[in-house]
């Protein structure tokens, strides 16, 4: 599904390398977790994969379903099946959440040469999916993320993911700032989407989320590279002992 090889990335503005050779392969149907100290480059990796400006790829490659994505525009990557649930979802005053969702769904369909979703189908789907995430009608009408609480913003990200039905889902600290109930909702939202044709890359600091979304593999990222990979027990080790031991061991 996703194949990242020796990815090295610097900031465009400063001559500072942030990703120092990331290697990571995620197969279809799998859930991988990435953990790591603040500033280790987790968000940078997710931004670079989704095509945000401001980064320069100096080496390596990233393929989604065999296609080189690094030369694609962000919207092309989305249409190809990539989705990033933002660590900090963006507020867009004046653009209604529904309008946003519909434009996104139909934008991707158009890019794939599919027909637009009918207004009725769209409404039906949004309502059902919003309901299971406890997103009320008012939140759907309001401008995108404006005045949403932290938890509402994160649930809104999951709603977008559910509507867009991407192949490769990257969740960047979707659990941070959520209380236990909200986290369960998010985890249920993710689990509902798990299937053979879809993969997840879950960036998190906490074992908590991984209790609900069982990962197949856990990676530890430090200083811009994946330094250790293991089973779910690796997350427990981090939860109990922090990163110090692991980092001391590998560095």
């Amino acid at each position, binding site marked *: 599904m996703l194949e990242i090889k020796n990815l090295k990335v610097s900031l465009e503005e400063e001559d500072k390398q942030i990703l120092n050779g990331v290697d990571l392969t995620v197969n279809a149907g799998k859930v991988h977790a990435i953990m790591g100290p603040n500033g280790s480059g987790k968000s940078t990796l997710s931004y670079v994969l*989704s*095509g*945000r*400006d401001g980064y320069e790829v100096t080496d390596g490659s990233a393929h989604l379903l065999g296609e080189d994505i690094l030369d694609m*525009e*962000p*919207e092309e*990557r*989305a*249409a190809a099946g990539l*989705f*990033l649930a*933002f660590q900090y*979802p*963006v*507020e*867009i*005053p*004046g*653009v209604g959440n529904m*309008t*946003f969702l519909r*434009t*996104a*769904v139909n*934008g*991707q369909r158009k*890019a794939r040469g599919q027909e637009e979703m009918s207004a009725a189908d769209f409404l039906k789907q949004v309502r059902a999916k919003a309901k299971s995430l406890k997103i009320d009608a008012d939140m759907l009408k309001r*401008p995108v993320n404006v005045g949403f609480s932290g938890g509402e913003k994160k649930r809104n990200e999951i709603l*977008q993911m559910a509507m*867009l039905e991407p192949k490769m889902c990257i969740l960047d600290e979707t659990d941070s700032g959520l209380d236990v109930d909200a986290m369960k909702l998010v985890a249920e939202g993710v689990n509902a989407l798990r299937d053979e044709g879809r993969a997840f890359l879950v960036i998190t600091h906490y074992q908590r989320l991984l209790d609900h979304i069982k990962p197949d593999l856990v990676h530890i990222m430090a200083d811009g590279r994946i330094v250790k990979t293991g089973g779910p027990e690796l997350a427990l080790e981090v939860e109990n002992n922090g990163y110090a031991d692991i980092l001391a061991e590998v560095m």
Partner: protein
Amino acid sequence: MALAQTKITATQERLNALRLSQSGWSASARADAHGRVIAMGLPVRRDEYWKYTRPDELTSPNVINAEVSAEDNTSIFGSLDCLSIVFEDGIFNAEKSDKLEDAEITLELLSEVNDLDIHWATGLYGVLETKGQAPVDRPLAALNTAFAREGLLMHVKGTVAKPISLIYLQNSDNDDVMLHHIIKMDKGASVTILESGPVGARCNIVMEAEIEDGASLNHVRAQGRNHERRATTHLFARLNKKSQLKSFTLTMNGALTRNEAFIEICGDDSVAHIAGASVGDGAFHHDDTVFIIHDALRGESRQVFKKVLRNGATGVFQGKILVKPDAQKTDGYQISQSLLLDDDSQFLAKPELEIYADDVVCSHGSTSGAIDEEAIFYLNSRGIPKVEATNLLTLAFLAEALSEVEDEDIAEVMERRLEDWLTRRL
């Protein structure tokens, strides 16, 4: 103060090209206005009130050609159920117009009644314009009062069901059109007046509205899309007790537009909203100059102006709220914002508050900004391409101004027109 010689010469040149009507009920108002023009002189660039906008093309005796555009020569409001009144190159066209008949409103053409000795508009024609000459000169409005030959004299007596739609078509490439409208709103009367169309290569339109107690005037206009047209307009309104004025202007394109509004709230508990959305590309200069005077209790005024500028377009906003000493409990709000789609475009704003009463709430803000790149990336990452994302954000930016249009059908027509404009351009 003596006028500069250049100003006197320029004014004289312009006046020489015009002929003053000497007959009928309006003759003395016209003669007075002519006198005002001579005394004030036409605007020149060095005048403080014209600091951001070159008046030359509006004042010169010569009109710059604006080729007739077939696309623009239809009314944006054509799909709505209105009473249409059509002017072609500033001349009334009876064939294309609906019958000027409605029990709640009397509509007369200035050209048809000008030579009568007595007319109800005598106490109105040029009167609000004259009042609007202080504290700031508006010589182009006086010029209009003196020389306009055509216009609608509207006496609104009750609730007019259908909007009155003034449609200004253009047939010649170099017409210089002057129109002077009078609206007299009786107590409790209400009407919606729409204006649309290219008008002419150059136009000077004045509207004077006397709004009696409890009356409500809703004014929506969509200015011509011809890239070469030049326009100056003035809206003068006086609000009596518990009355309401809502005026909204949509401007797309046009080489030069100066829209002035001079609003006096004289009766308690009245509301005046003046708003506008404009979008311009390239050689586009758009100026909103608004002056609102609060001279009564509990008045509410709102000015909401949004401008989208690209390819070196210029937007200007000069807005003032003047609160007189006795106008307690005034609620005044003013916002002017521009969205600059590139580095070549500019927005020049001069927001002003002058307050002499102590128990008032007044606020104003002016901002100028680029499109939010974070938001663009967010939309892109959801599969919305750059052009569409920019359009969404641009319409979102204009939304606050558009929401000033209460009638949903009218607002929708304009929103669609804006979408078209954006889709064609971005």
